[in-house]
């Protein structure tokens, strides 16, 4: 009975294409509203990188024509209502969550913010300063893993609208004035590129009001620049970012792929990717080879699309639909030479830690899967896992709504439901054909945040395809089975098509 009702409720999710609206009425204590604009950091003007994200951030951190920021803080305090913005490459989403007891009261504030934001000078200066310190300092110091991802995208998408971080560049942010924010809002947050989403326990009259209000947004036709072609790199292009006394080497790789959620080959690649490196899962191949069998790091995963805040979330969030994806490998920090030398006297002569070997291990395995594919049993198990696991993406009203709205970006009705059907119909042949077609190890970008002393020797090791034997401490070495050493022997000489290695200081990143 309950399942029938579930299906019934899912059917209620409707879309009126005249005005893009996703409605998801359900039993809940709260109401979630998402207002998504198809713009994103790709809409940032050249020389003002970061403008779209800053515009959205200032909106949520400032007042409206009727309330100052402080007045809003006072009003929503007893409701514990919350709202935030999220910008990615091609979309900006404002999310508002409120308990159903306060829907009308809160809507009054919310609608004035969306329709008539004040972008007060003082708030603008404050938010801009926070964005600047993030790009200049925080991203470079707080997490080597996030840094490696942002640095990689800068290279992989160079020359296109995807290249700069959504937070902006140092010069771009410096160039942005309050007037830029006001004008950008008028031009790129309009009734012509907006989608509305509502989930939770709300009356129909609320949706009618919301639709009518959103229709009051400017009638401008936003001029979103085209992405441009993302070129496949020539060979393996490596960027090393050295930091003093770094215990770990954080590694991230990527090469462009031509598919997205709506592509025919997507379900097959979901299986390939999950088998190779499902996010934060211990049963995928790279994790088992690098972490579980060899104890080299905390985890190893692959991706066929961007995974927002992967260090924080175990299940995917929403709001980052992209028309251009890349195949990525995320190797979490492995030990650098200084770290290993400080622990084990037997490794005293080491110049390069585990980074080169870990990369070879990952590429060797991807090469194997490209050539051999999955077995029937591996395919069945991975498909079974995904068909159950993907349903967990939409446990809360907010996630359910977000996934439905992202579906529309790709021209789909319901990504999660459609994948379940497509996975059910999938064959092993399709999966292995996709693996052969989209996996490759010859051309890619690699970014490694590493120790200052290691950058030079690692550069040489990569450029000359130097043998990189795995250096275990004595205590680990005596615990490993023979099969580990047998594979290591092959992997340590696995040829990598490295064409170029550059060393860039953190201070040289995200400048313009």
């Amino acid at each position, binding site marked *: *009975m*309950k*399942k029938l009702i579930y299906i*019934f409720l899912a059917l209620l999710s*409707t879309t009126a294409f005249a005005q893009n609206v996703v409605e998801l009425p*359900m039993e*809940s*204590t*709260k109401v979630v509203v998402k207002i998504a604009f198809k713009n994103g950091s790709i809409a940032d003007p050249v020389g003002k990188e970061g403008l779209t994200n800053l515009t959205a951030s200032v909106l949520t951190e400032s007042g409206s024509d009727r309330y100052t920021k*402080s007045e809003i*803080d006072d009003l929503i*305090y*007893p*409701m*514990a*209502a919350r709202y935030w913005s999220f910008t990615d490459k091609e979309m900006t989403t404002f999310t508002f969550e*409120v*308990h159903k*007891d306060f829907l009308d009261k809160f809507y009054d504030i919310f609608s004035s913010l969306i329709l008539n934001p004040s972008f007060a000078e*003082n708030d603008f200066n*404050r938010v801009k300063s926070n964005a600047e*310190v993030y790009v200049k*300092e*925080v991203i470079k*110091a*707080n*997490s080597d*893993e996030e840094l490696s991802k942002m640095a990689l995208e800068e290279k992989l998408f160079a020359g296109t609208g995807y290249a700069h971080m959504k937070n902006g560049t140092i010069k771009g942010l410096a160039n942005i004035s309050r007037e830029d924010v006001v004008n950008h809002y008028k031009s790129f947050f309009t009734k012509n590129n907006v989608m509305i989403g509502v989930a939770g326990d709300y009356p129909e009259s609320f*949706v009618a009001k919301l639709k009518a209000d959103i229709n009051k947004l400017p009638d401008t036709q936003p001029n979103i620049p085209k992405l441009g072609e993302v070129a496949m790199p020539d060979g393996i292009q490596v960027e090393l970012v050295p*930091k003093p006394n*770094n215990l*770990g080497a*954080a590694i991230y790789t990527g090469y462009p792929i031509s598919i997205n959620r709506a592509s025919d080959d997507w379900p097959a690649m979901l299986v390939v990717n999950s088998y190779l490196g499902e996010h*934060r899962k*211990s*049963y995928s191949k790279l994790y088992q080879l690098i972490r*579980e069998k*060899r*104890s*080299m*790091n*905390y985890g190893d995963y692959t991706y066929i699309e961007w995974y927002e805040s992967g260090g924080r979330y*175990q*299940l995917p969030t929403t709001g980052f639909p992209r028309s251009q994806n890349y195949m990525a490998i995320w190797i979490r*920090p492995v*030990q650098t030479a200084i770290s290993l030398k400080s*622990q084990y006297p037997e490794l005293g002569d080491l110049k390069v830690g585990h980074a080169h070997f870990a990369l070879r291990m990952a590429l060797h395995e991807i090469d194997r899967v490209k050539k051999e594919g999955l077995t029937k049993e591996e395919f069945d198990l991975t498909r*079974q*896992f995904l*068909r*159950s*696991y993907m*349903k*967990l993406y939409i*446990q*809360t*009203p907010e996630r359910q709504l977000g996934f439905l709205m992202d579906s529309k970006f790709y021209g789909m009705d319901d990504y999660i439901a459609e994948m379940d059907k497509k996975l059910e119909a999938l064959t092993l042949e399709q999966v292995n054909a996709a693996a052969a077609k989209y996996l490759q190890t010859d051309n890619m970008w690699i970014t490694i945040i590493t120790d200052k002393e290691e950058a030079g020797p690692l550069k040489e090791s990569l450029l000359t395809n130097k043998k990189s034997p795995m250096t275990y401490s004595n*205590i*680990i070495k005596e*615990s490993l089975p023979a099969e580990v050493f047998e594979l290591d022997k092959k992997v340590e000489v696995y040829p990598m098509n490295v064409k170029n290695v550059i060393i860039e200081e953190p201070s040289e990143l995200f400048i313009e």
Partner: protein
Amino acid sequence: MKNYLAAIAATLLLVTACSPDKPENKEPEGIFPYPIQQTKLDNGLNVVTVPYNSPGLASFFIVVRAGSRNEIEEGKTGFAHFFEHVMFRGTEKFSKEQYSEALKAIGAAANANTWWDRTLYHMTGNANMLDKMFELESDRFMNLKYSEEDFKVEAGAVKGEYTKNNASPYSKLEEITYKTAFTEHTYSHTTMGFWEDIVDMPNQYEYSLEFFNRFYRPEYATVLVVGDVKQEEVNALAKKYFGEWQRGTYTQQIPVEPEQQETRLAHVKAENFPPVLTLNYKDPAFSVENTDMAVLDIIGTMAFSQKSDIYKKLVVDERKVRQLGAGGMNMVDPGLWSVNAILVNKEDMAYVKNEIDQVLNNLKTEPVDSVILKETKSNIKYSYAMGIDSPSSIANSLSEFIWLTGNPADVNKAYANYDKVTQEDIMRVAKKYFVDNHLTIATISSDDENQVKEELNIKL
């Protein structure tokens, strides 16, 4: 209009469909809106069921009331966390490879994490797989078996975890703050543990067997299932799979932290990073009988929220502070209650400290506005109500009270305590806890420690 009617119809159907699930006399009393059904097995294992309308979905949690707080032996910091990793290394029935495959077949979001006071194992997935979840989990909780070789290899993964976290100045600040504020109690080390102990982990195989023997026992554990389930089903599975689990005998004395007698300073030097000032006062152990922690929660929410005068002054108007907040974690033993400020310029550190001091001192002598107090209670209540909208978020919320007091139903008492807080309570609690001799000041800046000391003009 069509949707509206359909929504009403669906809601009515849902109510009808759910009502038989609710056992009589188990209606919730208090903030938690669902029935909390508890059964204690003969071996002492507490089994908690919370039926919740999530068609086809259930969360299965095991809370072990042992974490880094229980690491009382020298050289063993980080062991509870390390042991959480070892728990994935297989049993006689399921080798680690078979365990991985079985877990993958369930298709659940499954993982574990360790905290000061507890270790938490969680799975959220298809409610029809509940039997398999019980089978897998009971097997490793009762029959964990791993080789010394596997044990040694797992230690490297913990090192990898430390390495990824250690890059952040915030992680370094947390580590040094607790190390400075606590001299005897085990809260002096974070859950991750000290680096030298992590490096030594591969040599601790014998100790790991002892650790399992001590804490992975029914009297330390609670099984919690939330979602599309019935109590009878959960209890039957618990008896079937955990009924034979033998009680242990281990008890321990956690060292008591002596009263702090002086202000202490902890500092992390970081170039090219926003300066940070935190004031950390000793706070009380969590208790539903003693409302001091509830009062401190109210102070943290009220006095430094975006609504507060200090926030408006330092963050919005003067723009000297980028972020400001305050609060303490609910802990089994006395912990720290902190005010945290991320600054724009390190030169403002003394000024910002002075402003925070003024707020804390005013709380001691001037009654807070009664309307703001009422609104703060409302804020806390609605924050909670909005946060429990899936089986896993509900299970997470209840698990906190399981590890704190052993009783998930204490969530209702804990939230009822907020309602009781008066203006007088706030003055009393502020006087009791915001004391210089119980303060650890922790900072991040590009300066050496001595310069910070001078700048803040603090006597240490």
